[in-house]
């Protein structure tokens, strides 16, 4: 029996593993499996930073992600927007990625305009759109916003937008919320905004799983809070929904929590595959089939 299993596993076609992964992610989605989330320190730190803001404070929302990472970052962007709207802060959206404006539009139309119709464009929120130049953009706007942004994304002169009139640079923001999927992203905001101006610029972020290990060294001095991947998004959602979601929270504010169901099952599968792969490897060595 062991020999038969060994032979099957040794020659297993990788496509069976793909099929198993598909089922382990697909079945929990179909049955909408959900598991309880307990917020950890970093999610609480992000939540606290936004909670500490007062009504009318300025928040820069750097939406540096694209459709390729929307699955991970979309839920945290949604939760950030909900939290900012509830806190009644002034929101300045911008992106350093060419596809970022679509992500901003999605947040504005799907959250701000839909659920907070009282908020007025130009007074409560503004879309500054995309600017090319990678970290060069941060380098310029950290001292001179108008050096690059003469108009907003709709083509309105920035001096005619009430909430932009007394903003000279990013240093006038009370907090930067960076949602980052690739380069440029949170790392560049930390390098060129938060680090050179530690007394004036505060930043918290949400990033992809791939980026998380690169950003942990900045915690807590340069980056007080970080939401790592979908797990961070789910923890933060839990905190926001608990305080602001009401008795029956809208399901769009629980996307992260929903996506943790397939995560758990798929991770169990990954662990099983790693264990089985190692058993086969050591069996091969014991039988002298591999040196």
């Amino acid at each position, binding site marked *: 029996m062991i020999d038969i299993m060994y032979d099957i596993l040794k020659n297993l076609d990788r496509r069976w593993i793909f099929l198993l992964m598909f089922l382990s992610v697909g079945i929990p989605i179909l049955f909408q499996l959900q598991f309880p989330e307990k917020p950890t320190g970093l999610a609480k730190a992000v939540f606290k930073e936004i909670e500490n803001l007062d009504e009318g404070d300025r928040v820069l929302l750097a939406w540096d992600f694209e459709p390729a990472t929307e699955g991970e970052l*979309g839920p945290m962007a949604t939760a950030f927007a909900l939290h900012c709207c509830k806190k009644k802060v002034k929101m300045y959206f911008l992106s350093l990625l060419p596809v970022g404006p679509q992500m901003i539009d999605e947040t504005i139309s799907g959250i701000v305009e839909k659920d907070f119709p009282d908020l007025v464009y130009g007074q409560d929120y503004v879309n500054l759109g995309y600017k090319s130049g990678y970290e060069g953009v941060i380098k310029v706007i950290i001292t001179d916003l108008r050096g690059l942004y003469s108009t907003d994304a709709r083509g309105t*002169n920035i001096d*005619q937008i009430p909430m932009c009139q007394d903003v000279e640079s990013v240093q006038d923001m009370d907090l930067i919320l960076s949602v980052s999927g690739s380069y440029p992203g949170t790392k560049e905001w930390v390098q*060129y905004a938060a680090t050179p101006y530690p007394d004036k610029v505060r930043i918290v972020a949400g990033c992809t799983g*791939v980026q998380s290990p690169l950003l942990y060294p*900045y915690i807590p001095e340069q980056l007080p809070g970080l939401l790592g991947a979908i797990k961070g998004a789910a923890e933060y959602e839990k905190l926001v929904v608990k305080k602001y979601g009401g008795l029956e929270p809208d399901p769009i504010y629980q996307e992260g929590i929903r996506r943790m169901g397939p995560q758990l099952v798929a*991770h169990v599968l990954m662990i099983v595959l790693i264990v089985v792969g190692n058993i086969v490897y050591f069996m091969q060595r014991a039988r002298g089939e591999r040196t």
Partner: protein
Amino acid sequence: MKRETLIWTLLLVLGGGFLAYRAMSSGVGSIYVQEIDGVEREARGVDVVAGTAVLSWSRTGGTWVAALFTLCIFSFLYKDNPFYKFAESVVIGVSAAYWMVVGLWSVIIPNLLGKIFPAWVQSWAMPGLSPLREQGWFWNIIPLVLGVMLLWRLAPKGGWIARWPLALIIGTTAGIRLVGFMQADFLSQIRNSILPLVVTIDGTFDFWTSMQNGLMLVGILTCLVYFFFSIEHKGVVGKVANVGIWYLMITFGAAFGFTVMGRIALLAQRLEFLFDDWLWLIDPAGKRIGF
């Protein structure tokens, strides 16, 4: 008939049959819209039943195209095939064109032409732009000239002219990044690593924070020793370097775990799209209540 051809044919027939059944029995992939305050928004099932929403052919077509392209990309997991190649080529072509158009409208027109010829640009492209030239506008002629020089490489002769602006780009980028890394990743990291090994809070010894700081210090020192190649890794140095290797392996393991989590989240989002927006098998956001 070959085995693989048979499997493909069966899959296509079964998939097509299922789609036809779903299309006839419900309205799979259909997107309904309604106008609210002059803005077209996605409608819910109850709005469709109430007769206030209409079928959007463009959004429905978009959903079907997105779903079919997703399946084309997934098909690569079985093996390379023409469907995958087609989807890949379309993505590359569309991305290149998109970048070009975005670059033109977000950089060249507002930040270059808009600064040199503001009245002209205002008349046909950006009505919100001020028609008056800013002080020092003539500095923008330099990037214009450099841009033309960069495009010179497309000319049959004088390709070397493009090397000058290219050298400037490489030099400035290297300079900017050097300063950023020196400040944020070198000096600040050294400062952040100087932590007390014995932490007390209100006169009470904080065991966990002290241990955390101690582990971090050991990790930094042992990893530095591992990367110190001027002394042979033997004896005490070898043992310390081995501890460094353990730290590095744990870091790589954590990074791998985060990457797996990220990739599963992306797969979950795609499957959610297929099951929810396209096939109407699930409805987590309650969009189709009433159908």
